[in-house]
């Protein structure tokens, strides 16, 4: 997927990530190409879902935006500030506005500290208000995430279930009134009934605290439920970006089509379609395929796909794909100039 390009970026974004590259050294002097030239943006108040299978680079992307893992190259602009060039104190100054929620709610809480101390810590570090004001804020966010502050603050994480721990993590992320919250697989460790509670909670918190969310997950139905826009990734590249409804109703990338047909549907009357994927192993990010990285599993791959990397181009308003031969109406495809994405 395979592709690069920045045709899909907009002007007035809160977060703008351009040509993000993250590489890790590997044994034998080789390089793992975890994220290779990914660009996306998020407007204020929007929820962007990033979806893909394990190893596609979606979590690495989230970590690189936070500068928890420094990008190899590329730019991350948040509220007009270039984060990749910030160091030390300057970077710490941005962090309160940029928070993260992690996948494993239990291990992301310190087992030896009381919940109240975990949640208040950021306020103490940033000297936000006096002690009374800090306590009031902690009480407010804990109540907002659906916990009883009086009974929660003096307990430790082992006394809580996974869903409750995730509520505490959310409270911790909200206590500094962030603008942008990056959620890295926040519900994948939870049971379905609890997953629904946390998804609803995130929607409520987004409205109440005017948040902008980047929601990273592998579950397509979960991503659709919470997102305004969705970006599909494969092996470190962007496949498709667009409004959630358009991407799911009219996928413009063969990988998205395959993912959608593989979703298990809880209805015995549902007619399952065979997943249109060439069988075989996922290529290694150490030696990714040439051209389009998806071509080795793509049912529609042609010779051009191995020679030329597809650039991101628009197929309908706000809906972009990085595919030479997108699975959409040929008339629509013909109307789109092939070079549309290359101009920038």
């Amino acid at each position, binding site marked *: 997927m395979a592709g690069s390009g920045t045709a899909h970026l907009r002007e007035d974004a809160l977060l703008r990530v351009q040509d993000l590259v993250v590489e890790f050294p590997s044994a034998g002097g080789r390089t793992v190409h975890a994220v290779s030239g990914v660009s996306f943006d998020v407007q204020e108040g929007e929820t962007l879902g990033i979806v893909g299978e394990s190893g596609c680079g979606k979590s690495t992307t989230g970590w690189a935006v936070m500068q928890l893992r420094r990008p190899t190259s590329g730019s991350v602009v948040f509220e007009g500030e270039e984060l990749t060039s910030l160091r030390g104190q300057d970077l710490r100054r941005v962090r309160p506005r940029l928070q993260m929620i992690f996948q494993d709610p239990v291990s992301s809480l310190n087992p030896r500290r009381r919940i109240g101390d975990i949640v208040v810590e950021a306020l103490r570090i940033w000297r936000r208000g006096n002690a009374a004001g800090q306590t009031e804020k902690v009480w407010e966010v804990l109540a907002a995430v659906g916990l009883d502050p009086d009974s929660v603050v003096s307990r430790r994480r082992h006394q809580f279930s996974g869903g409750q721990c995730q509520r505490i993590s959310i409270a911790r992320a909200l206590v500094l009134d962030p603008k942008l919250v990056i959620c890295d697989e926040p519900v994948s460790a939870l049971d379905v009934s609890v997953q*629904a509670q946390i998804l609803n909670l995130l929607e409520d918190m987004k409205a109440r605290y005017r948040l902008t969310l980047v929601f990273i997950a592998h579950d397509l139905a979960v991503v659709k439920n919470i997102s*305004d826009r969705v970006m599909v990734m494969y092996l470190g590249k962007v496949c498709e970006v667009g409004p959630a409804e358009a991407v799911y109703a009219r996928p413009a990338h063969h990988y998205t089509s395959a*993912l959608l047909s593989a979703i298990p549907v809880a209805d015995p009357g549902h007619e399952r379609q065979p*997943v249109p994927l060439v069988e075989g192993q996922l290529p290694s990010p150490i030696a990714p395929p040439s051209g389009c990285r998806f071509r080795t599993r793509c049912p529609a791959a042609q010779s051009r796909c191995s020679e030329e990397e597809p650039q991101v181009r628009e197929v309908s308003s706000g809906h972009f794909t990085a595919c030479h031969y997108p699975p959409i109406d040929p008339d629509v495809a013909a109307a789109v100039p092939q070079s549309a994405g290359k101009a920038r």
Partner: protein
Amino acid sequence: MRNTPVAADPVSLTDDAAADDSAPGDTGPLLQVDGLRTGFRSSEGTAWAVDDVSFQLEQGRTLGIVGESGSGKTMLARSIMGLLPRANIECSGQVLFRGLRLDQMQPSELRRIWGTEMSMVFQDPMTSLNPVVRVGRQITEVLRAHRRMTRSAADDAAVELMRSVRIPEPERRAREYPHQLSGGMRQRIGIAIALACGPRLLIADEPTTALDVTVQSQILDLLQQQQSERFMAMILVTHDLGVVAGRADDIAVMYAGQIVEQGPARSVFRTPRMPYTDALLRSIPRVDDPSHTRLAAIAGRPPALLDRPPGCRFAPRCPSAQDRCRQDAPPLVGGVDPGHRYRCWFPLGAEAEQAGPPGNAHDTVSGRVPMPSATT
């Protein structure tokens, strides 16, 4: 276990699955579980992880056991297999497999049945395979122990099995170690091992939970195909209702150690009678729904093992619970649809049932039952 010499087989169960139609129990169901209880002994009493579970499974059928974490589904699967440690575990009830009381068998007797008559596919193919033994050898081990095959015959059979579970280049792959294979390929090896001796019953415990969605559908298709080709019975244990829909003939929904609803898959999915099943179905986000659709979450969480409420165990979370639900435990009773049973004093769609023939009346396009009493 596989290195233990197999004694002469008194019941001659081990040979060709198609043969010996006269074996005991072939007239009844393949597997019959009656009043099974499995618990952990603790200082505060026995915590019953599986509490009075009964069901039957016929040859060639697939049963989906669905439940959230802590519902007892994995303990149930392991109790049936006899895979639980003896220490600190308390067990009662009956597990009849082709007329044999599995629950009373000694480990040495079970060993003759494991692999040949019933086998298991585990959740995590990385930890269930031996990391320092080539995968081909892990398959031939079973064949050589149970089938007394020669090394070369077993090698050939292993390659054939790997081919049947659609592993590309099986000859080369057989010489690799588990860490050289992807998660999906490892799970295919796990399935090949489980199928090696042609079991009549395959228990798959969350076989795709560790896998990506595209790989998941391939593995489930493979299990289904092998199940029908070999006319095996299969128990598919999962937390994901989407995994069993369309793949299981019958569904059993577990909650707090009990089966709270069971029946033909279509009937359970289309007209759930127990509010828990209905709530579980509604809490799943659906790709067909528009973005930002409010999910029908179930408030609260399941009861702790040692602190289960009297009466219906779902009552504290149930939107339509009444006084009776909080006092008396509902039995598993049948409705109008044959084979469909549930534990509920006030089952959903009860009014419609009295008014006319059920099933069709509820068969809405979306697959959901209109549920006036229990929505909010």
